[in-house]
């Protein structure tokens, strides 16, 4: 094998970059749709905005096979324990998008039964404003998640697992 063959067939990179590159381009979302945002999320999957362009079209309805939780809709006090359980069932590393006004802040539902923002109880990475957000907004949030994944440090994981 001569040098020219190697040059055109071998790519040198950091292991971290390679892993992050793989992760960010094959996100498996778990949609937690409880209201109209869940309906709008279907449009994100459909042909016009099509998130398979970002490698995130493998929608899993099992949290154990997903690494991106998309909370779409208002979360009631009866649903919150379910959301917490689903979040905890997802394998790490995992990311969370809070889609729409209700998931992010309770929206117009300032009542006894609606959680005023899921970030009070579970970690959220990206918030999408809107009621409901346009599909483009969700695509933007997905790209923001990809940027976050790009900046993940493998050393953080190694340190925490050795503890």
């Amino acid at each position, binding site marked *: 094998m001569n040098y020219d063959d190697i040059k055109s067939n071998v790519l040198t990179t950091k292991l971290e970059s390679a892993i992050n590159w793989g992760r960010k381009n094959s996100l498996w979302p778990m949609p937690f749709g409880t209201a109209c945002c869940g309906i709008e999320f279907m449009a994100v999957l459909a042909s016009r905005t099509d998130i398979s362009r970002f490698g995130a079209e493998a929608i899993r309805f099992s949290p154990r096979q997903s690494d991106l939780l998309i909370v779409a809709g208002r979360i009631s*006090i*009866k649903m*919150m*324990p379910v959301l*917490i359980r689903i*979040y*905890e069932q997802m394998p*790490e*590393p*995992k990311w969370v998008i809070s889609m729409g006004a209700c998931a992010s802040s309770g929206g117009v539902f*300032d*009542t*006894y*039964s*609606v*959680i*005023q923002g899921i970030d*009070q*109880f*579970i*970690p959220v*990475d990206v918030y999408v404003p809107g009621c409901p957000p346009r599909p483009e907004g969700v695509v933007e949030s997905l790209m923001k998640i990809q940027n*976050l994944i790009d*900046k*993940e*440090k493998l050393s*953080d*994981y190694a340190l*925490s*697992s050795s503890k």
Partner: protein
Amino acid sequence: MLLEQTLSQMKERFPDIVLDMTEFAGEQILHVKSQHILTVLTALKADGYNFLADLTAIDNLTLGGYERFAVAYHLLCHKTAERLTVKAYVPEEKASLPSVESLWKTADWQEREVFDLFGIIFEGHPNLIRIMNPDDYEGHPLRKDYPRLGRKERDNFPVIERGIQKKKRPE
């Protein structure tokens, strides 16, 4: 025709039970005492009001009325397409009245809903448990004296921390 006949006889048939008869927006309303609701509704069902279209409750705390709560039964006769509303008045101290689940199976879940949100007990109901709120919920939120923002139940959940991704997120 059925409606006129029924309403004209109602006061004579149940003089101690029927409190009043009124009309509002074209709807006939029969106001009755709650202890004998089963007698009244059994008679009305036999008269032809075969369908229980809705069962709900009203809190008269600020409205005034015979009693604090009114349980409203919306009846429909399929033959003549006539409707009748029966309001049974329930006092606050003893918020209970007989269940009509034996007459209409649909009353099962509707009575559970009224129980959940208003705290009215339906005697003889086969399975009177909460239907909408969580099982461990305290209080009855559609009562007018229940605070709109609740009693901190929406703030009372465990806070889940990040796992191995603990480091602060880059902006």
